[in-house]
């Protein structure tokens, strides 16, 4: 825990900057109002007001934290539609929306990782795929997802696929790519001696894959899954924008419709926290797995 001090220092610096920016960005509105009312503002009054506006340009950190708390714990335990009173999650809580996002993220991540894995195996074992798949995979990532997402939703909708799956497919579209790139590298990671060794034992391609290539690729697999799950979350949120059936993306969008900047920022933070937890969980599995495999210090 030697690292705690530098980390706290950085966090404190960010918070200080943020508060300073809050005052600077929100003071215009406060000063206008004071001017119209013909009152003089002391510095303290100015600062206090910039940090407690209903619709600030930039909400103060504590406003975001309070909103996060209110739209999760408070809403579920005391709200009329909350879990405490109805037994189901409130459609106004970030837990409800977070869960919608999370479930599509999981499904998309699973599809994307599976697809990336299969493509990587194909690329490593098949000459034609080696030459042809990668350019398409790269091209797929150069199209802005924000432009592509509505098309995917519309096309899938017209063949009767609605709900979770279209969002998951957009998530998969973003998350398969790091897995392909990482796994191609990983499956090719065994050195020449180890591959020659397999040949001297007259091992089949399947045995070489199972006993050598696959275990060797594990560090690469986990690294690409970390990027992949974060990408899946982004993809899901983007997919939620045109669908409008709940999720953190919808909270972001409705917040911006109604100028609810605090709601936007709290949804943003909810997404960031979710991403950090997901990446952290994969990191934890990675550490335990690689240590058991003798591939991590």
């Amino acid at each position, binding site marked *: 825990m030697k690292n705690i001090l530098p980390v706290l220092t950085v966090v404190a610096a960010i918070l200080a900057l943020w508060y300073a920016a809050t005052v600077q960005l929100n003071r215009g509105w406060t000063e206008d109002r004071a001017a119209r009312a013909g009152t003089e503002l002391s510095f303290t009054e100015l600062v206090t007001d910039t940090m407690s506006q209903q619709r600030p340009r930039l909400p103060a950190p504590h406003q975001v934290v309070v909103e996060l708390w209110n739209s999760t714990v408070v809403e579920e335990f005391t709200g009329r539609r909350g879990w405490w009173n109805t037994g189901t999650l409130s459609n106004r809580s970030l837990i409800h929306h977070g869960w919608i996002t999370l479930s599509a993220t999981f499904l998309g991540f699973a599809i994307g990782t599976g697809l990336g894995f299969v493509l990587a195996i194909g690329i490593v074992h098949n000459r034609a795929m080696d030459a042809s798949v990668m350019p398409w995979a790269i091209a797929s990532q150069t199209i802005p997802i924000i432009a592509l997402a509505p098309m995917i939703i519309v096309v899938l909708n017209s063949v009767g696929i609605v709900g979770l799956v279209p969002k998951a497919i957009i998530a998969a579209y973003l998350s398969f790519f790091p897995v392909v790139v990482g796994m191609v590298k990983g499956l090719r990671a065994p*050195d020449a*001696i*180890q591959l*020659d*060794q*397999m*040949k*001297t*034992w*007259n*091992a089949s391609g399947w*045995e070489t894959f199972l*006993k*050598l290539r696959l*275990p060797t690729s594990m560090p690469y697999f986990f690294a690409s899954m970390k990027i992949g799950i974060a990408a899946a979350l982004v993809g899901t949120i983007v997919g939620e924008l045109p669908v409008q059936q709940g999720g953190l993306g919808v909270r972001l969008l409705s917040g911006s419709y109604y100028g609810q900047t605090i709601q936007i920022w709290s949804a943003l933070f909810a997404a960031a926290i979710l991403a950090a937890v997901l990446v952290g969980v994969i990191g934890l599995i990675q550490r335990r797995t690689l240590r*058991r*495999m*003798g*591939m991590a210090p």
Partner: protein
Amino acid sequence: MKDAKTTQTAAPVIEAQGLNLTFETADGPVQALKDIDLSIRKGEFVSFIGPSGCGKTTFLRVVADLEHPTSGTITVNGMSPEAARRARAYGYVFQAAGLYPWRTIEGNIRLPLEIMGYSRAEQAERARRVLDLVDLGGFGRKFPWQLSGGMQQRASIARALAFDADILLMDEPFGALDEIVRDRLNEELLRLWHRTEKTIGFVTHSIPEAVYLSTRIVVMSPRPGRITDVIESPLPRERPLDIRDTPEFIEVAHRVREGLRAGHVDD
């Protein structure tokens, strides 16, 4: 001398005639092997020595079917190298131990046995036997990183011995180890060779190592890779380490050195 006679009459295990191998590189063709004629008989311990680029490793890899000759013929156990490889005729020990970190030492030794379809009981039995053979009994459950470099290389030799190949091909197996460990492993390797009666092809660039171990020393030189001298060792099969101070040993070492120098005159 009596030993030399018995090996003379034994059947050839590896036989190369007019073997040529040319690598096509970006800088043009490189002749790695030129007109190699060599016959290795059963039970021989043959060392290949020469400067880098002389084709000693390439020749071993041709025997192992890891490289393909451009012209000439080579047979291993009377078959093509490919057929011999498929019949698992040889065990190959590489420069690096190449043990899998996620497998125990025993698991590493079982690896070729799993691939070759031995039963679990048979795998365990063989792993135990070869670990004893290289003095690693009791280390089966350790992981590679828990062993020293010398022990790891011993484990890789055990792995090459675990299936019943009667040829052992070794490509500078002790090259990365320090002198003291190397001496001890050389001694152990000789003992192992006595006990198992394998035919061994051994690549090295250490003159004392080649002379100490071999019944025959093949001296090679580079550009193009070719054999410049083949020396029958007059040393007895029983060789304590201090045989290296005897006049016979020094004489053979001298001849090897001369052969290596002769190969360099061409440059």
